[in-house]
């Protein structure tokens, strides 16, 4: 039995197989406890109050920022901005940096496998500035080749926005190389780390990206807290995204001066207990260790892909190499719509995702309407994989074939 399962209240006393970890992960008890501790001992509005509880709340919030900065190897804590989630982080970059820097005729380079949250903000910037969107396309294995990267990123590029790990194919993109090419052409590079940060060690300095976004809830943390990392020199010259309380220095009837980074980008009362929960999640994840996370996921992915390969009607998308899936296995069963697949698997107490996974351009590229997706994490087990594979083998029967 998996030694970590006991830490997750939701996994106790149930036969439910949770294979939708790419959508959101489960939370260990220590995360809920840390948030309860915050709420029960020092809940107050951080950053402003001059009394003990508020000071403690501020400390807890800033400690969380420090731990988030350590997780992704940011050089300075103030390069970490707390947001609601990856989507908000990417919107912050698009509205603040994008609208103030991108000019008509320039290009914003994305990949066709981006999540909608790394497409729609750039469509908005392109519409408003007159810039053009350029899409990198992967080969059959899901890999962005060096040639594709070198040809599509040119001197016209103002922004290159790329997913670290695809939420559909599970493939890890060569973000370091992409950042190098982007910088060579004078563009800034935005990395969507929603699917990578929970699974692989992230070092934003080594990657060399200018911005990096991730969500707390995909990394054992609570929903409603996410992170945007940005290089300090860029954040300093960017205009605020949202304005109002907490983010000002001095306000008159007609104008205002803004607070320093990161407060400049954290308008309104912040999600302090969420940040505290995220910090507890990061500590827990570090305790498990990324070696263990990856080893477990890869072994389970291998077993799952080998199992699916024995069912002739199943097609798996992306690389044949389980190590290139980051725990994500997207598939279809011949003749069965993924929504029907998910519905009947639910009756077997198996949770998988079905649909377009917020990546319709990738679905169009793959030539499918929708797919089913099983996504694993380190608390999943071989027994669960075996039960899943056996159930998938019966789906066609349940659907009348």
């Amino acid at each position, binding site marked *: 039995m998996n030694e970590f399962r006991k830490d997750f209240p939701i996994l106790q006393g149930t036969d439910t197989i949770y294979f939708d970890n790419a959508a959101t992960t489960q939370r260990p008890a220590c995360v809920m406890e840390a948030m309860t501790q915050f709420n029960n001992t020092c809940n107050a509005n951080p950053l402003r109050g001059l009394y003990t509880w508020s000071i403690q709340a501020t400390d807890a919030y800033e400690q969380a920022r420090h731990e988030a900065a350590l997780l992704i190897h940011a050089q300075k804590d103030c390069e970490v901005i707390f947001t609601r989630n990856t989507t908000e982080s990417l919107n912050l970059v698009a509205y603040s940096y994008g609208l103030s820097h991108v000019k008509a005729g320039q290009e914003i380079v994305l990949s066709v496998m981006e999540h909608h949250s790394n497409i*729609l903000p750039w469509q908005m910037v392109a519409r408003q500035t007159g810039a053009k969107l350029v899409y990198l396309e992967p080969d059959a294995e899901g890999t962005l080749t060096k040639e594709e990267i070198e040809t599509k990123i040119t001197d016209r590029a103002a922004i290159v926005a790329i997913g670290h790990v695809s939420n559909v194919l599970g493939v890890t993109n060569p973000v370091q190389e992409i950042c190098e090419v982007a910088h060579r052409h004078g563009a800034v590079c935005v990395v969507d780390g929603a699917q990578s940060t929970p699974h692989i060690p992230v070092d934003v300095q080594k990657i060399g990206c200018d911005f990096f976004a991730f969500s707390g809830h995909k990394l054992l943390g609570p929903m409603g807290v996410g992170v945007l990392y940005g290089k300090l020199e860029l954040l300093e010259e960017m205009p605020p995204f949202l304005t109002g309380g907490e983010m000002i220095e001095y306000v008159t009837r007609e104008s205002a001066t803004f607070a320093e980074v990161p407060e400049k980008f954290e308008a309104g009362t912040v999600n302090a207990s969420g940040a505290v929960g995220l910090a507890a999640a990061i500590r827990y994840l570090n305790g498990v260790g990324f070696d263990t996370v990856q080893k477990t996921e890869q072994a389970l992915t291998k077993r799952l892909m080998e199992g699916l390969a024995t069912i002739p009607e199943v097609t798996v998308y992306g690389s044949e190499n389980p190590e290139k899936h980051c725990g994500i296995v997207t598939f279809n069963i011949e003749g*069965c*719509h*993924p*929504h*029907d697949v*998910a*519905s*009947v698997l*639910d*009756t077997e107490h198996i949770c998988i995702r*079905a*649909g*377009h996974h917020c990546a*319709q351009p990738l679905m169009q590229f793959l030539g499918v*309407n*929708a797919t089913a997706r099983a996504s694993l994490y380190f608390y999943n087990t071989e027994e669960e994989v075996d039960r899943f594979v056996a159930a998938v083998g019966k789906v066609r029967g*349940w*659907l*009348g*074939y």
Partner: protein
Amino acid sequence: MDIKTLYREIVNEHNLHPTHKHDLEHPTMVLNGVNPSCGDDINLQLSVKDGVIEDAAFNGSGCAVSQASADMMCDDIIGKTEDEALALAEAFMGMIRGTATQEQKESLDEAASLEDVAHMPARVKCASLGWRTMKEMVEKLQKDGVTQGRVTANNSEVCGACQRMDCEKK
């Protein structure tokens, strides 16, 4: 009813061996109904004479629930007046929202079996696609005062976000 049983006893038959999945020779109106989020896509065809739906059929692709629901809907509306068809659509939508009366549910005949699956938030759109499309068609026919003949439907806009018709722009 357990979802698996529902598929086995009702949905699979209508999905794999539909009665009304074909093209009509002289439809009064054809309308494309789409659920962009799951790729359900049907072309619903109605043949109407003097306010009565003489024949109904569909073609397209999608999940078993969307296809089976469209097939059962055709069973329900053939031979009905436009107003009766609209009342059935209202009954079906009411069933999904949980506001339908027992009488309304009974009027739906076999289509009422989708009550359970239709309650699942992600499946509401699948189950209601045929009904939603039919409602739009009948309302247009009534608005334009068409009693027979051929109407070209082009009132579905292409959504800028997803390039698909009938998308509820999010």
